[in-house]
């Protein structure tokens, strides 16, 4: 079971690499923002999965909740900024 979870962790890390390609490559700023949103979703799942691997979900789930809430605020701030400022 633990090996299976570790393989899932590795696949998720590779998927984060795919999104990171989009963040680094993206022709417009909105591509980068979308890629960052995908990375944060993967990372929240990754934290819960890490908690399952260590069998201490109670410690790891709090980080993912806090990060999910703050990620919402940050991404909405960036979107509002770009909406008022236009394309840089």
């Amino acid at each position, binding site marked *: 079971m633990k090996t299976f979870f*570790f393989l899932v*962790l*590795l696949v998720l*890390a*590779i998927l*984060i*690499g795919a999104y*990171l390609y989009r*963040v*680094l490559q993206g022709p417009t*700023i909105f591509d*980068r*923002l979308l890629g*960052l949103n995908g*990375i*944060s979703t993967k*990372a929240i799942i*990754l*934290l819960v999965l*890490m908690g399952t691997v*260590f069998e201490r979900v109670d*410690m*790891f789930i*709090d*980080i993912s909740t*806090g*990060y999910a809430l*703050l*990620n919402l*605020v*940050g991404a909405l*701030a*960036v979107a509002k*900024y*770009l909406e008022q*400022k236009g394309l*840089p």
Partner: protein
Amino acid sequence: MTFSFEIPLLLLLLVTAVGAVLVEDLISAILLLGSYSFFLALVWAWLGAVDVAFVEAVVGAGLATVLFLLTLFGTAPKVSRLRLPPPPMAALVSLPLLGLLLLYAANDLPQFGDPQSPPSTHISPTYLEQSYQDTHTPNVVTSILMDYRSLDTMIETVVIFTAGIACALLLRRHSS
């Protein structure tokens, strides 16, 4: 627990750091810095330092991104594109040498989680055994932060409070 998952995370961290330096746009650099500190939080969570990871995820990835954006929004620079001059020759020579020196020094550190290393034979058992009798606080981390190092923590709080006041004064909009 023998999987070394931190190596792919460190690779992602390296790619993000290089990208944040090389990217041409200030907003993209801010976004890359946010994902950088979140990868750092993932590495710390994997190594078991959950409270440090929590602080890094909340402050580094969440609050710092919003603060940088507010600064960019409040100062409203004419040009948000960066044109980096090529780095000087001395830096290109001396910084890799410094890195090699640090790697050489890191060889002498004990392995991660080594039960024979001096911290885990002397310091950790002492705190684990005596912190409850000394301070009557059930959580060891809280007792070290708030009792043994209380002055340190208090001055840190003062510094953070002063920095917050300065940021609020700098970013305040003039209503007139």
